[in-house]
């Protein structure tokens, strides 16, 4: 168990981090960049897949991102969709620039509890970010887990993040099921929505399997329906939620869902613990 933010003396004061690499994942109006960051003057903090950080650009503010890489890999990666005040500024930054990081925050995926089980990740769009940390972790601890299946889709092939990494996993023989919403020239994978890919193509066996899903709200809703049809119980399904956040430490109030703070009690929720909440 990692005590969240244990290494932060004042939980509002970020660690200093340097951007050491920037990868343009998606271009255009919904541009996505993955930033690789390294803490300045100290070791990286311990974390688990699903933990988040508030990335801070002084003068603009802070935004929450789930850490996109597994703790088994070096540095800290964040995939950022250019959409608001902070993310627009982040997209203007260059390698060598300094940002602030507050973390690790939140309650992560219980990856240790999942040992010995099959893992299926079901992601859509930028929602693949927390799932990437999970599948990297499972790949790097291969002997501890059963079969790994990655299901991922986006509107078009140009909107897929981590495309090269996924293609390489396919080459290495991993079970990767990709999809795009509409037919494109040269697309060799499934055409249609992620839940349909899951229902008609992947058809995962619920026996001894944990399903983790993250993506747009409608995709999550339909995915949960398909998983239920396939025989998954609510306690076999995990998801991560998004809410507007500020403090990141369960104080400021805005990410609350009933009495739970998404920033502190989430963003990872087991589905049965979510479905009982009034506001979910």
């Amino acid at each position: 168990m990692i005590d969240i933010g244990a290494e932060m003396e004042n939980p509002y004061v970020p660690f200093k981090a340097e951007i050491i690499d920037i990868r343009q994942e998606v271009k255009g109006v919904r541009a996505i960049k993955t930033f690789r960051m390294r803490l300045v003057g100290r070791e990286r903090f311990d974390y688990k897949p699903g933990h988040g950080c508030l990335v801070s650009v002084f003068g603009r503010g802070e935004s929450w991102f789930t850490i996109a890489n597994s703790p088994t890999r070096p540095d800290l990666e964040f995939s950022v969709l250019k959409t608001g005040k902070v993310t627009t500024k982040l997209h203007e930054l260059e390698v060598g620039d300094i940002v602030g990081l507050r973390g690790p925050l939140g309650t992560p995926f219980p990856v240790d509890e999942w040992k010995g089980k099959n893992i299926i990740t079901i992601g859509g769009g930028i929602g693949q970010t927390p799932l990437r940390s999970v599948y990297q972790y499972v790949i790097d601890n291969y002997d501890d887990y059963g079969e790994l299946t990655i299901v991922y889709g986006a509107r078009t092939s140009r909107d897929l993040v981590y495309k090269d990494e996924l293609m390489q996993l396919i080459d290495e023989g991993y079970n990767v099921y990709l999809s795009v919403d509409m037919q494109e020239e040269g697309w060799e994978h499934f055409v249609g929505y992620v839940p349909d890919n899951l229902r008609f193509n992947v058809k995962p066996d619920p026996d001894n399997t944990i399903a983790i899903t993250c993506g747009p709200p409608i995709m999550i809703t339909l995915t949960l329906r398909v998983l239920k049809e396939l025989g998954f119980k609510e306690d076999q399904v995990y998801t991560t939620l998004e809410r507007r956040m500020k403090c990141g430490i369960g104080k400021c109030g805005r990410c609350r869902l009933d009495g739970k703070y998404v920033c502190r009690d989430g963003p990872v929720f087991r589905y049965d613990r979510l479905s009982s909440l009034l506001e979910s």
Partner: protein
Amino acid sequence: MDNKIKAMIYDGNFLRDVAEKLLEKGYRVIAPIKSGNYFIFREIDNPERISLNFINTKKSAKEFLFPQNEGLIRYREWIEEILLDSKKRAIIGIRPCDAKAITLLDEVFLKGFKDPYYEARRKNTIIIGYACNETGDYCFCSSLGLSPHETEGMDILVTNLGDRNYLEVITDKGDEIIGLFDVKEVTDEDGKRKHELERKAVESTTRKIVSDMKDVLVNNFNSDYWRKVAFNCIGCGTCTFLCPTCFCFDMLDEGEKEGIRYRAWDSCQFPLYTLESSSHNPRREKWQRLRNRFYDKFLYTVESKGKVFCVGCGRCISDCPAGVDITEVMNGLLKEVSE
């Protein structure tokens, strides 16, 4: 806890005299003063400014522990200064409901992650309360299990017996201060008078709220009742602004190249509060936001902290421009479901 409370008598106006003493000792003294038609808490430098002839102050003293705007970090290219405020303060003349509210803020800011900014202020603040011998039209503390003579959250509580003050010393901090004064033992008659004043104050509180409604709230989350009661609401946020227990805040950076990261009171009654950058808003409608205020105070905080986040001060009733009344809404819900 009650056994630990020590009672004594002070001949004179204790709140005035303690203000003088604490000012001499270099404390910042925050006390009620008269301002126009209202009474408000202000930092004073002269104890003569204190005015005690009030039912309650316009705003609670919340802002002296959790300011409406509070600098957290001063930055240039990187952090220049962390703006903790550890000055010694005394809040004197605070009413029991507002002192109780501070214990609820403690639940938020001192449990789990300690909020260093709140903690720095709280640790260095002495709280000297002022018991209510008279209650107002909007008061309803007694139906929340509190008393107009409640001592929770205070270091010392002062009850005005007319010609003298009855002091209840609750904490070691309070003890230290009492050591600076000449006090007398409480006589039986003083005890009786104090008791009588409390009884009268409780009896004069005619407004009531039914707050213990966990199951009713759980079962009526999707009731049309919430649309109905929100109809008049204009979403101004006055209720949350004046509420001594509301603690939500925003965090903002002021200054692009150099400036201050600060926090500012925010309100769940505003649509921007939950609006996400994707344009998705989990509480899009006014009635959802109004409902949230009630669920938060009477259900969510009960579930997560074991406490109702209302102290019955009545400010959200007296100052609502649209006549939304927290007691009517809660009592009306019970009526609605029983019909």
